[in-house]
């Protein structure tokens, strides 16, 4: 804040550093800077002294030592002979995978609940209000612990699934049965889900550092190509529409381009599902998803969905009634009104807080510690830290990684904000 003042007639006096608004801000900034520098120097000095007193030094060499611990859930190959850096990567991937699934599920659930909460149906809107209030006002940790305890203590043991000859003879049902057409088994040891297998797969490409599963990447590449071609089809259709006023029919082309190549590839590679079956005391085949992952995912989804529902509700309510009435007056049909008038405006209100919820969800994955989910905090900030005793390095690195994830997400948000900002003067 600056004020217009007459230039002083008698030169510069020392007291003007404090009383003259033209110089005061410099004085304050210099004082702040000096205090800040002193504080940083004090902290650094203490740290150096403390490190020396403990006989430790500050370096990240420990990352290339043998880790020596196992991680249950690993998206890229890992065993306990690998180094701490690779363990860190596994943890980071585990963090990211639970965050991505959590964001997707929470968005779907949150949008449904937010829309239903605005429904004219009295019963449904009340139920959704109860849901939102219940999940918003109780700590996330409780939902994580509760889902984990229920999953691991209420679910049946693998032997409850067994069907013996005597039981068949007596016409008895087993104590537990599999779900979803006998493909998924939830036991107290984890959730067994089917995995995809390829008889004539492309094998793996070993790059030394990571080995790539070529089947997966081939499917991904084909999908990306399909989406790209589909975009070209839509663009050319739009160009035709703008030139001639008639939009060519494209839906069958889109379906053809989007689905046929992928299905053809999958069939060509000999796709079949590896369904878990009970053999001996445990389920064999398929993938065993640990309860720590499931519980964390369920709790994060349910908790964040409550917040997203409120955001969606607020976004829809923020659009004034006049907007839809004006659109109807222009003769737009309801679905076009939604697509062209309501959604673009509502999304502008919804997206920024939505992304900050994604950010919260990502940071909340660190609560996986409560159920021993080995995410970034569990590997780098947990076992690695305890084994090597390098608190300073591990914590700094972990904070830096979380910080860069957050900054990346907020950079995306800022880009979006700038692109949809009202250009009105």
């Amino acid at each position, binding site marked *: 804040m600056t004020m217009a003042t007459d230039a002083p007639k008698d030169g510069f006096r020392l007291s003007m550093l404090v009383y003259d608004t033209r110089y005061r801000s410099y004085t304050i900034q210099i004082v702040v800077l000096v205090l800040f520098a002193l504080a940083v120097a004090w902290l650094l000095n203490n740290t150096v002294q403390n490190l020396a007193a403990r006989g430790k030094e500050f370096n990240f060499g420990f990352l290339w030592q043998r880790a020596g611990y196992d991680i249950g859930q690993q998206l890229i190959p890992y065993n306990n002979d690998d180094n701490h850096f690779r363990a860190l990567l596994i943890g980071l991937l585990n963090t990211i995978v639970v965050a991505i699934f959590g964001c997707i599920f929470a968005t779907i659930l949150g949008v449904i609940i937010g829309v239903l909460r605005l429904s004219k149906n009295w019963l449904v809107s009340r*139920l959704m209000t109860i849901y939102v*209030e219940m999940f918003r006002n109780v700590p996330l940790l409780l939902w994580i612990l509760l889902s984990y305890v229920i999953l691991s203590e209420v679910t049946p043991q693998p032997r409850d699934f067994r069907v013996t000859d005597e039981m068949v003879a007596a016409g008895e049902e087993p104590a537990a049965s599999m779900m979803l057409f006998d493909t998924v088994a939830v036991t107290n040891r984890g959730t067994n889900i089917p995995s995809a297998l390829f008889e004539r797969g492309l094998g793996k490409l070993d790059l030394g550092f990571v080995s790539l599963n070529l089947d997966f990447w081939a499917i991904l590449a084909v999908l990306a190509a399909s989406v790209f071609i589909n975009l070209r089809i839509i663009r050319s259709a739009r160009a035709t529409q703008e030139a001639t006023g008639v939009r060519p029919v494209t839906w069958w082309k889109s379906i053809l381009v989007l689905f046929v190549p992928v299905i053809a590839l999958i069939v060509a590679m000999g796709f079949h599902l590896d369904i878990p079956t009970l053999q001996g005391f445990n389920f064999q085949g398929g993938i065993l998803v640990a309860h720590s992952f499931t519980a964390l995912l369920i709790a994060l989804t349910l908790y964040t969905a409550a917040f997203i529902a409120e955001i969606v509700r607020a976004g829809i309510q923020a659009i004034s009634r006049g907007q839809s009435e004006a659109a109807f007056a222009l003769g737009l049909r309801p679905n076009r009104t939604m697509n062209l008038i309501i959604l673009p405006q509502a999304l502008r209100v919804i997206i920024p807080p939505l992304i900050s919820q994604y950010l919260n969800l990502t940071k909340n994955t660190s609560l996986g510690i409560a159920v021993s989910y080995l995410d970034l*905090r569990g590997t780098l900030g947990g076992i690695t830290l305890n084994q090597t005793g390098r608190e300073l390095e591990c914590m700094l690195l972990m904070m830096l990684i979380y910080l860069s994830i957050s900054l990346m997400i907020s950079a995306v948000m800022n880009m979006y904000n700038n692109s949809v900002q009202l250009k009105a003067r």
Partner: protein
Amino acid sequence: MAQGFTRTEILPALPPPITERGAVKWMRENLFSTPLNIVLTVLGALFVYWIVASSLPWWLNSVWNAESLSQCREIVQAKAGEGATGACWASIRVWWGAFLFGFYPPAEWWRPILAFGLLFAALAPVLYAGQRGNLTLVLGVVAAFLLVTLYLSQAPTSAFVMVVVLVAGLIALAQVLPGKLLWFTLVYPALCFWLLWGGSIWSPIVAMAGFAVLYAVFRLTSPLIGLAPAAGAGIVAAALWWLYLDVPLLSALHSMLPLEIRSINSDQFGGFLLATVIGVTGISFSLPIGILLALGRQSDMLIVKTLSVGFIEFVRGVPLITLLFTASLLLQYFLPPGTNFDIILRVIILVTFFAAAYLAEVIRGGLAALPRGQYEAADALGLDYWRAQRLIILPQALKVSIPAIVSTFIGLFKDTTLVSFVGLMDPLRGVTTILRADINWKGIYWEPYIFVGAIFFLICFGMSRYSMYLERKLKTDHR
């Protein structure tokens, strides 16, 4: 000419058809208006039925008196037949002391209770500044609450004397000089600290005297050297007081007049006592820090702005857990060798900073929502920066951001459960884990989680409702 019949008197109005009135109309409009709504209603009703049918017997068969989970189950089976399930609230009954106070010695429970009751007495002057009637009412309720709960917890006579003297003094003050009651709010933190942690009564007094020194130096020097340097001198004097005079003065006073209560270690704190201590302290300190950070971020001064932005973005970018681990693992590196201060205090400091960064962003939103004209009008009136902020800008900005501020507070209170990861015994993970590890109650899970969840729900829901009430009350536009 056609013969016609014209009615000369108006017939009484018929009642609307049966489908257009009463419950039927309401149900047609609210439950069965469209096919989609019919489907939703049926699904919703089925869901409610499923919940009620599966959990109602469990609630109805609740057992309140038992020694162990197996005994609970026997009682339920005896009462409701083979295979029946029932809630075993006896576990909460046995462990409620730990849920509320952790390992705080039962003989000293009157101290947290007293501190809790006086918290409302300290809040009242802020919420009802100068309103004699409301202040007296709050103080009366506090006194009644304290006397009843202290009686129930078999507090010593000295506690009753303390309550009666304190509350009577406060009520008298509220009658004579209701404005001066704010002094109690200022003294309360020291009183609360002394009640909770115990020790010599001189330690909070000597520590508070540091603030008195600050104020005295400020008042004495400000006519001579101006406001800002005087404030600096005051802070330096207070720092010198705390660094060099505090300890010797304390021991001298204590040897002259040893007034002390049993001192309690931080590791004995737990349960909702711990959550409340961290939550209330965090909330009350994070708001001013958050306001300063928000102002710093809006400031024209480059260095102040950069530092504020850096701090806010850093704290908001990392999970609270990492900050808590910093408190428990890293602070020993950052402080001079040999210093080791209380873990609860460390956690409170970091939780406060965490909440302050979020509050700063919320308040910045409120500041940005103000029309530019408000700032310009304040300048035009010739107000200096702090007066403009205090009288014009902040009252409006804070009012706009009340809902978001309160949700941050709710978030902070919920986050107090995370302190269990650094070894403190929070009600959720700390106490519940101990209860579930108890041989008598092994295998219990719904009851402790429902109990803890219900208390958190009541507090957080109450806070959000209060913020909605406050928002309505302060609303001045669109009348």
